[in-house]
């Protein structure tokens, strides 16, 4: 599994995302600020980490397009992959959960990481790392023309993380 690099931080405070929809039922966004890059070893746990290579691509996309968001996809073909959009491009709602507000170095606005609520119920015992691999296309995700694809790598939450994140 790719290590989480130093390029990313996450906070997961309870303030609403740009679409105004925020999970208030005990999902990820109550856990307080956490440095994603370091969360595996120190600090409060987070659900989502970002590899340095993925953070580099986020910075590039941010510079070219503006503020970003992710929505984790399920299903067919290009599914089960994180989709990266301009912030607000994908309208989240009551059926979504905000897993993290990723703080990426040199990106002013937090990068919201969302997932459908029902899908989250089946993923909540795992920790996600946004990585990037060479690839070709995938939905309307912003990075595809760069010849790369964001990819989720997963591991089980540790008991300590689970106690904090899923209590």
């Amino acid at each position, binding site marked *: 599994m790719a290590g989480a690099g130093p390029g990313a931080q996450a906070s997961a405070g309870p303030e609403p995302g740009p679409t105004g929809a925020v999970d208030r039922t005990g999902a990820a966004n109550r856990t307080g600020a956490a440095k994603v890059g370091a969360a595996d070893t120190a600090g409060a746990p987070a659900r989502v980490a970002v590899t340095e290579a993925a953070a580099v691509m986020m910075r590039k996309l941010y510079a070219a397009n503006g503020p970003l968001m992710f929505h984790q996809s399920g299903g067919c073909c290009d*599914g089960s992959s994180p989709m990266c959009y301009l912030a607000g491009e994908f309208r989240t709602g009551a059926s979504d959960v905000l897993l993290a507000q990723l703080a990426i170095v040199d990106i002013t606005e937090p990068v919201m990481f969302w997932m459908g609520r029902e899908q989250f119920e089946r993923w909540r015992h795992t920790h996600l790392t946004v990585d990037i691999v060479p690839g070709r296309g995938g939905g309307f995700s912003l990075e595809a023309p760069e010849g790369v694809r964001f990819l989720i*790598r*997963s591991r089980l939450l540790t008991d300590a993380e689970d106690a904090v994140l899923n209590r």
Partner: protein
Amino acid sequence: MTVFIAPGRPDALMSYQPRYEHWIGGEAVAPAGGLYFENPTPITGQPFCEVARGTAEDVERALDAAHAAAPAWGRTSPAERAEVLNRIADRMAMNVDRLALAESFENGKPIRETLAADIPLAIDHLRYFAGAIRAQEGGLSQIDEDTVAYHFHEPLGVVAQIIPWNFPILMAIWKLAPALAAGNAVVLKPAEQTPVSVHYLMSLIADLIPPGVVNIVNGFGVEAGKPLASSGRVAKVAFTGETTTGRLIMQYASEHIKPVTLELGGKSPNIFFDDVSRARDDFYDKAQEGFAMFALNQGEVCTCPSRALIQRGHYGDFLSDAIARTERMKQGDPLDTETMVGAQASNDQLEKILSYLDIGQSEGAKVLIGGERVELDGELAGGYYVQPTIFEGDNAMRVFQEEIFGPVVAVTQFDDYDDAIRIANDTLYGLGAAVWTRDGTTAYRAGRAIQAGRVWTNCYHLYPAHAAFGGYKASGIGRENHLMMLEHYQQTKNLLVSYSAKAMGFF
């Protein structure tokens, strides 16, 4: 055994052009932005052509061409449109080997499948909709003695179709056939992973289709798919893909109050009741093959039977036979007719599958066979190959809940009928499912109880025209492969006609 010569080599049955433009208004049109992207074959990982990198400007040109062609095409008689579809089918039937080679080379799938399934099914699909549009009736309803409601089918006009990469030609035909039969003009965007096999098809059939009736814009989703899907100039969007993009397309459609049809994948349960193993006969052998269907098309099928539920009484024996069957799968060069399992369609698809092999084991699922990438020798060394893999675990694990889209099946056991239905329905999706039993009553009850649009009963992975295909739950909206899809491409015009000379009496 036959090994087809790869496109581009001397004596190959077909070859791709070094470059493909868009296909707009019946001719090749260079991208407005002047950019192209490379198209690799997953068999070796090597690029074999470049493809127009479309943008909103190209989409607008394609929409201009489609709108110019749509009125005349929409006024043609059903017989004329049926004739066009039948001629396309005939032309494809004369070129089955070439089309099969084109699709296998671009997608990485075994040519035995494209020869036996993808291309013949596409041909039959065209003929089916040619017949269906001839046979379609409007309606008339006698409201009262002097009042009649006439219902006419009218084409929508110009429709957008976004095609997936797992069956580049078959999925294009699944969408094109009903749209064209119903009298619509189409702007079609192939997947960027498999952008040119549909261009090769078009090179064989272009003379049969009026210019502008079918337009192809290539490019990346964000650059070409999004302007197409979000355009106010399309009357409908048809999409096959995944849930987040499906939702996004619905959001765009809501801005213009346009309909969508969506096919968004699944996590299909394949249920084997104890009585399957009552005898070691043909039926048992067929059920074993039904289990092995998880590897068809390298698992890159929305209805991949990726969850096998085996009843406790025969669990051990049935599963060990299934492992042995999986062991016998021949993996290798997709262009060899003996090959059963070819290459995954792209590098990112390969990486995603590997990430699931990782999390599956982290969660405690046991690998019974496979579980790793395959490094083939020689020219195939750069290709994207994964071992057919059987996981054993629990339905709550992520490998049981997410569509891996690889040759990976997750196996668990169940106690009785109720347990089987509970596990089968414990999923976000509802596209496909299968029930295997020698008991007709069990088969019927289970088939009705499973929340999925298609329940194969004592069979799997059959896709005949005239059997409706589509999803429950998060698996989508609409039914393809059946004449009911015609109505997804039609408006209903009601003429309410009075034959009375008398005033109504209000004023």
